[in-house]
């Protein structure tokens, strides 16, 4: 009953159980690092409150903050463009590159460019568009899409990278040492950086008070890219606006600690004026974000700073992988973003949630991720997914016999999930209960004793 697209894809993913375990442990390790780092900051929860309040402020004052950003960026010497949708974003970039005679183009990681499907568009124009983040480059050379927004190649084994680089970069056959492979990519991509006619980045933050764009990376690929060619482009969604540098103090303390468990990224670069002798173009993109703002139940989604923390902690993401989701952003935030972009197409992802709320607890900008998923389930009355999930839940919850049996015949609980068609329950160990009795049974016994 009720197999959703996500659960079918997850069932396929779960066939390689060794890889599933490895992936699960890898992501949990990142979550663990986040926990250690956040506990070193006594004011961590106040920081999250501040980030949430700042985003609610900026997203509810976008017209004036965007005007302010544009005025300051223009005064800095940048050229500001506006794109209402993905098509306009692509054509602005395509137009700029064509006008400048660009043949070789380097870009750093930008989920907006994935959202707007930039690279295939540029390739059709005959422009070589090279992803320069190592993980993105691996994915691009493999002809795949990122499976995680911060760790795009987190599902790829070193042996696969070794074979890929042997073919693409002439590395030693059989050598899959990460240091050796990373340095081979360093040399290979150096040539791309030095030969690039233009470079592009996304933005982690766009600061209204200064008109600057802030880009955070560990590799330095954005910095290498933008420091050489005569044309630099930065494109960001309107939700990247922050009011001022004072608020950057809050966000830069949260971003890397939550994303990868580091106190800060290696490079936090502030771009405002064009480099001497070059042009700096900034593209401000809506592409559906103003629609999210108008959605009373889900506008808080715009608080998201794309750290990926909700993926690392999500028990369903960790055990079903990024490709099981139909939206290009997976995990808890991706479930919600998918529903905003095309509910009919992405409703199957709604089943990929246990409502454990771990994502909401980890989110540095306090997006109410799990509650939003719950509300989507409530709203989506007519869909088959809603029916499958709610039928399944009411079947179990509504039947004391089935609930009690499901719990008391541990590890049968997960079998209940499987029976509901939620296949990510497969292969999971049911935790040992402290008591072999169900709560109902215990309460009943207590009552009898009284």
């Amino acid at each position: 009953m009720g197999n959703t697209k996500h659960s079918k894809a997850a069932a396929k993913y779960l066939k390689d159980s060794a890889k599933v375990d490895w992936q699960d442990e890898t992501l949990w390790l990142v979550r663990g690092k986040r926990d250690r780092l956040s506990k070193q900051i006594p004011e961590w929860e106040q920081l999250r409150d501040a980030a949430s309040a700042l985003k609610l402020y900026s997203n509810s004052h976008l017209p004036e903050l965007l005007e302010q950003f544009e005025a300051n960026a223009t005064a800095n010497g940048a050229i500001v463009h506006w794109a209402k949708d993905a098509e306009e974003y692509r054509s602005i970039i395509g137009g700029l590159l064509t006008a400048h005679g660009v043949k070789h183009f380097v870009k750093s990681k930008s989920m907006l460019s994935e959202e707007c499907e930039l690279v295939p568009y540029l390739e059709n124009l005959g422009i070589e568009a090279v992803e320069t983040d190592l993980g993105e480059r691996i994915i691009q050379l493999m002809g795949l899409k990122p499976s995680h927004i911060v760790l795009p190649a987190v599902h790829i084994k070193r042996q696969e990278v070794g074979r890929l680089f042997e073919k693409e970069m002439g590395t030693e056959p059989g050598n899959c040492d990460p240091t050796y492979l990373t340095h081979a990519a360093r040399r290979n991509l150096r040539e791309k950086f030095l030969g690039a006619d233009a470079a592009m980045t996304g933005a982690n933050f766009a600061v209204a008070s200064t008109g600057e764009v802030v880009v955070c990376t560990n590799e330095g690929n954005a910095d290498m890219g933008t420091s050489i060619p005569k044309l630099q482009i930065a494109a960001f969604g309107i939700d990247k606006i922050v009011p001022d540098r004072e608020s950057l103090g809050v966000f830069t303390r949260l971003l890397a600690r939550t994303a990868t468990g580091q106190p800060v990224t290696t490079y936090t670069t502030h771009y405002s004026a064009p480099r001497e002798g070059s042009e700096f173009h900034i593209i401000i993109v809506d592409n559906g974000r103003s629609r999210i703002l108008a959605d009373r139940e889900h506008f808080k989604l715009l608080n998201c700073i794309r750290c990926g923390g909700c993926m690392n902690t999500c028990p369903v993401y960790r055990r079903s992988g990024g490709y099981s989701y139909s939206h290009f952003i997976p995990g808890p935030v991706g479930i919600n973003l998918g529903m905003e972009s095309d509910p009919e197409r992405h409703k199957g992802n709604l089943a990929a949630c246990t409502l454990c709320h771990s994502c909401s607890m980890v989110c540095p900008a306090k997006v109410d991720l799990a509650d939003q998923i719950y509300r989507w389930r409530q709203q989506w009355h007519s869909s088959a997914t809603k029916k499958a999930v709610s039928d399944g839940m009411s079947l179990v919850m509504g039947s004391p016999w089935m609930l009690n049996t499901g719990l008391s015949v541990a590890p049968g609980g997960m079998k209940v999930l499987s029976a509901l068609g939620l296949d990510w329950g497969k292969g999971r160990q049911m935790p040992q209960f402290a008591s072999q009795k169900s709560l109902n049974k215990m309460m009943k016994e207590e009552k009898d004793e009284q």
Partner: protein
Amino acid sequence: MSSKETIMAALRSAGAQAYEKPDLSALKQGSIHYEDKLEQFRAAVTASGGKVADYEGADLETLFSGEKDLVVVEGVFGVAENGCVWLNEPVGRPRVDYFIHEALAIVLDRNEIVDNMHEAYARLGEKNEGYGIFISGPSKTADIEQSLVFGAHGSRMVAILLK
């Protein structure tokens, strides 16, 4: 209607509840401070894979294990909580010098260290000089099986030289 007008109109008609700008002064005052900022800064740089040495008598050859491709630049101030250093647009050299060499040495006044990022941005103020960057240790990646490797694209080695 221009695209800007279309976007602005959509935002205005979204009818979003207007939230007030939060007052961050309590957070900033109550944020982490260190008794010995320099010691914390050293620890944070080291944890990020960088080195800290005295500028006086610094032996770059030893510091960078014999690497000859190196550059020495000026940092403005450091941040104790995470070991990053603020650098302005370089003078008399291309911006790429911050990234393209195998080894990067940043000279920093040991008295110019702030506790945390709130203080860092308060110090920078709301004016910008066209370009600026926080650098914390060497370029790194963990994109292959989460194994940490230094020298993805930027400098493979970074040392802070304290004046």
